Structures are given as C-alpha cells and as structure tokens.
C-alpha cells in the first residue's frame, strides 16, 4: 500500500466510524421519542401497556364532553366506531375540537382504564382527516 493510499484509508475509516456513531446516536434518540399510533379499539382491547406514551385517534362521541365545574379538567369519549375509550385532559382544547370531529390525543393509559392526555390535536381544516384516523376507521369499516 502506498503512503498516499494508506492516508486515504485512514480518512475513510475515520469517516465511517464518525458516521456510524452519528447514525447510532440518532437512531437511539429516535427510538426514545417515537409515539405509536393506536385506534381506540386497540386501546380498549388492552393492546397498549399502561404508562407507555402513545397517540390515539378517533371521533369525539356526541354528548360525551364533560367539563369539571371548577377547573379546566375535561372528560370525553373517543371512538373509531368500534370500542370507545374515555379521555381525560386538563387545559384548553383546540378551536376545532367539537363533538363528532376527528381528533388525536397524545398521552398514557392509566390503571383505571382512562386515557390521560397531555396534548389534544384537532386539525384546522374541517374537511381534513388525519391519515391515521382515516385509515383506522377504514379498517374498522372493512372488518365489519
């Protein structure tokens, strides 16, 4: 091996090594911060371990929204037209949060079987359906 080639080899090895570390760290950061999406039926069937941070999507059930009298705590039911779950959230709901509107809630299941959401997302176009919800509802309709 000529000295020039040797030098080149070292540079390439260093690059591969550096890139490997970068990719490794990135993948690690990624795996720690992924939120899996579930439908309400999956959650209701107990497919989700308690305490794991997930996203749940579905329609807000008509007449299910209950505000607490003295705080910003709110409960509502979410459904994919299979099994519904109850979501609890404290805070201000987005403008487009309405009954019979598709929303996504992010949070954890507690041991009472209630979904404790720390974030509720509703999209700003009323005809727009997040692809996750559309697909999970389509699956539901097909399986019937």
């Amino acid at each position, binding site marked *: 091996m000529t000295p020039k080639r040797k030098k080149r080899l070292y540079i390439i090895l260093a690059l591969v090594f550096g890139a490997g570390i970068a990719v490794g760290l990135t993948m690690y950061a990624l795996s*720690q911060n992924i939120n899996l999406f579930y439908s309400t039926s999956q959650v209701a069937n107990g497919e989700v371990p308690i305490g794991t941070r997930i996203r749940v999507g579905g329609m807000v059930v008509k007449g299910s929204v209950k505000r607490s009298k003295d705080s910003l705590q709110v409960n509502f039911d979410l459904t994919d037209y299979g099994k519904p779950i109850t979501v609890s959230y404290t805070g201000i709901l987005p403008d487009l949060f309405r009954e019979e509107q598709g929303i996504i809630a992010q949070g954890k299941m507690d041991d009472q079987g209630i979904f404790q959401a720390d974030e509720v997302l509703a999209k700003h176009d009323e005809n727009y359906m997040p*692809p996750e919800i559309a697909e999970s509802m389509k699956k539901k309709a097909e399986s019937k």
Partner: protein
Amino acid sequence: MIPEIGEFSLILAFCFSILLAIVPMYGTIVKNELWMHYGQSMARAQFFFVMVSFICLGYAFATDDFSVAYVANHSNSQLPAQYKLSAIWGGHEGSLLLWALILTGWTLAVSIFSKDLPLDMLARVLSVMGMVSIGFILFLLLTSSPFERYLPRFPADGADLNPLLQDFGLIVHPPMLYMGYVGFSVAFAFAIAALLSGRLDAAWARWARPWTNVAWAFLAMGITLGSWWAYYELGWGGWWFWDPVENASLMPWLVGTALVHSLAATEKRGVFKSWTLLLAIFAFSLSLLGTFLVRSGVLTSVHAFASDPERGLFILIFLAITIGGSLTLFAIKVPNVQSESRFSWLSRETLILINNVFLTVMAMTVLLGTLYPLLVDALGGGKISVGPPYFNAVFVPIMSLMAIGLGISVTVRWRDTPLDRIIKAIWKPALASILIGAVFPFIYGSGFDFSVFLGIAISLWILLTISLEFISKFKHADSIFTKLKQLTMSYYGMMLAHAGVAVVAIGITLVSVYSEERDIRMVAGDKATVAGYEFEFKGVQKVQGANYTADRGQIIVRDGKNVISTLNPEKRHYSVKNNMMTEADIDQGFFRDLFVAMGEPLDGDAWAIRIHYKPFVRWLWYGGTLMALGGLVTVADKRYRRKKTIPATNEASHA
C-alpha cells in the same frame, strides 16, 4: 372569459418553458450564438405569460367570480379586500401558481442581471431553469389548475378563506418562503451548467454566490416570518413545533447555509468544488421534497391540504427525475474537477469544512426524523410520529459545537494559521463568555441552569469574537471612516448574519428556560399572577367584525401598582365556515412578551384563559431578520458588479 385567458396564458407559458429548456441548450451544443441568445427573450415571454395568468386569477378574486372553483373555495364576498388578494395563494392551486410566478421571475432576473456572464453559461443556466419550470407549469396544468369552473351551477357566495389565513402573515410569509425555496433553483441551475460545461472556477463561484445568498436570505426571512406568525396566530404561543412542514423549510435552509459557506471557500481558494455542486443540488432537491411533503398530504401537519394522491405522485416523479438526473450527471462529470489549492488543519478551509459537516448532519437528522414515520408506515410498521424531544436532542449539541467553531473561524485565516496566534486571539473571549455565562443564570434566574449557561456562553462567545475581530481591523487604520468604507459589503453581511446567530441563540435559550405558562379558569373580577405580573379578567363583550362575530375579553395587566397594558384577546366565530378562531393579544416588549389567549367558555360565565410570560421571545425574529439582512447586504458587494471583458465566443469554444 378572464379565467380562460388565465388558463390559456399558462399554456403559452408552458410552451415557452419548453423552448427555453431546449433552444439555448441546443445552441451551446452546436455553438450557435443566436440560439443561445434566444434564452433571454424566452425567459421574458415565459414570465410575462405566467404574470398574465396570475393577474387573471387575482382579477377573479377581486371581482368575486365564484364560478371559478378555486375562488369559490377560498374566498367570500364579505372577505376584506387585502385577504381577497392574498387568498390567491391561500390554497394549493394558487400557491403553486405563485411558485411558478416566482420561478419565472427568478429566471427573468438571471437573464437581466447576468449580462457579464459568458453567453454559453447564461444559456445553460436559463435552459436548466426552463426545465424546472416545465415541471411546475405542467404540474399546474395537469393536476392543479386554479381556473377550473363550477359550471353550470356555481355557488352564490364563496366558502370563505380559512380564518387562520385571514391575517397579515399570509400576505408576507408564503411569498418570502417561496422566494427562498425557488431561489435555490438558480443555484441548482448554476451547478448543472457548471457540470455540463466543465467550467468550475473562481469566476463560476463568483456568479453563483450572490444568487445563492439572496435565496438563502429570503428563506431565512420566510422561516422567521412563519415562526412569528405561528406564535401569534395559531394561538398557543409556541414558535417552533418541529412540524413536518417546518422541517421541510428548515432542511433546505440548513443545506443552503452550508452551500453559502462552501461557495465562499470555492470562490476564494478554489477548494470543495464538487462538494459545493452537491450541496447546490441537494438544497434544491430538499426544496422540492418540501413541496412534496406539503402537497401530497402524506404527513399529518398544520399545513396539510386535503390530500390528492395524483399530485403527490407527480411531484414524486418530478423529484426522482431531478435528483436522479442531476446526481447521474454529477457522477459522470465530477471526477474531472480538481482542487486548486491546499490547506493545513488550522485554516479557515478546515473550519468551513467542519461547519458544512455539522450543517449536513443536522439536515440529515431532521430529514430522518421527518421521513421516519413515512418509512415505518410503508414497511408496515404502523403509524408513528416523532416527537420534538428527538429533534432537540440532536439539534442542541450540534448547534453548540457549530457556534464554538464560528467564533474560532473569524480569527483564523485562509490556508494556514499558527496555533499560538489562534489561542492568543480566543482565550480572552472564551474565558469571558464562560464566566458571564456561568454567572448569568444566578442574576437573571433563581439558580444555576446548564442550558442557560450553555446558551448564553455560546452567544456571548460569538458576539465577542466577531466584535474583537471587527475592532482589530481598525488597529492600523489611519481613519475610522476610510476603513469603514474599505471593508467590503460581503464582510458587513457576514458580521450581521453571524451576530444574528447569537441573537437567535439568546432568544431560544431564555424563552425555552424562563417562560411561564398557566391555563386558568377565570370569572370576571378574578386575578392571577404570572411571573410577577398581575392579570385581572374584566369580563367579555360581544363585538362584530367584518366577517365574524367575537367574544372579546378584557384583561388588565399590572406590574405592582401600575397598569402596564390592557389586553383584548378574542374568540372569533366566522359564520361562513362556522369556524371558531382564537385571536391572542400580546403586550410586546424588547425583553419579554405577555401573551393572553381565551380558550372556551365554561359553565357559570367563566372562561378558560391561557397566560404566557415569554422572555426574549422577539430575539428569535430579530436574529432571523439580522441573518436575512446579512445575506442581502453581501449582494451589494462591488466585486459582483465588476464587468468581465472576456468575449463570449472565447468562452463558448472553451466548452
């Protein structure tokens, strides 16, 4: 009639873009000067017809022509006049037309301001830009014509513009952002032209640089405006969400930043040539990818329009042709490219290389985080989303390292710098910034905080090193004024942009750590204290706007005894679409914002109220603006206007 003229001129513009793509390029192959010259007039014709088309759409909006489907879906007779015009780009079709207008506008600008470019080079650049506009105008004509009619029964009134978009932000944010996105097509065209001609020297870099800097500056401004708009209009006081579409604009900006720096090295020292080309190709490809992500509706995002797979497919094919074609060309041609000079480890070249590596790594991690959900879904792994902690975890360390490198780079010369000279120049600012950074959280906050230490130290580090470097320029100057005049505009631009980085870093650090936020249930007369400010809720009144009704709250803010502000947040109801909208009210300040927004009405005449205290939040946008200004100032540099006297024919035979 008018909309048909619009459609027709779009078709004409398409024809001219085909001619533009073929004729001048063919001219460079057969070395026919006349054919090469045609590029300029075709660029003009192309721009003219897209402009006519754009004006026709504007006319349809201005005259409430609801027989045009796009107008009917995005406007309403009650809509205030300025929003009727900005509604032109309030939806998919119109914003693409704006995109095409800006693209042909850039093409026109290149044909006008590049008179000193060798004729064959200009012909190639214009041809490549013509190819890009073929793609976009075809996309408009085939899948997204804004001129389609609702016939024979069209609605009596329009469906109204999304209330979120009825805002000053819509008037300025998309055009700025598109100027940036599309501006990278010029850098791309220069890169392709360089590959085709094999001409890749300092002169080439000098031509490409001002265009790249301007595009970069516009993109910086567009992103800054977007962040500012999201802050006050989306209603919840956030300024960056790591939303896929935000990422889509950030990726080309990161790669563009790398490109701006590596072009400098290519111009001054003749190094990193092939790397510069690759960056130019990637900056534009990422702009296209951004369009794909926004338009195809594959990702859940604030910006997503109702999806249309046909459109997504078109852009995907376009993207594949652009990236595939240009990378193939790159692979064939680039082995001929050689560096013109050498440099040592301790040199500005090395630091620019490090800057480039960091910026590309950042762009790659953002890309990974953005596309990972798509990838997992395509492989059948289910629907997932990647949260902001991922992006923060990779962004903060890389950014900090970059900032350290930035401070060193200003003291390092091209080619080679002795180590003792570097150490002599940096030990004082390094020590000062570490000390002040360590003390700052005790004075401003309540105790030590590592993020604050890091953020303040690196910001000070940048500010101190660049100021010291600036002052050192005057050491041997006879008079300050002559020296001020002697320094080039490029130098001032660089200083401004780098100071902007420090200002943004201060803003991000302080607003992230010291923000206070409370959501509370309030009845008229209730008081709440946030960050030492007392907020008194006075109740709610009904008010009538141009095309909405609103509940307007009144909140009095006191700082101890004195009333410092009365805020009037609104909860608006837009009747046409039956939409609710939160309109926050903000007491702005240089050092802090007080932000109040109303949630929903609760039982017992109470309201959910959100109160934010946001220290230094404006510094984010001041810094972004400084960067953009810096980018624009460099263009005024005299050396870009120096006339070349080499006759064009010489250059043509050179190819």
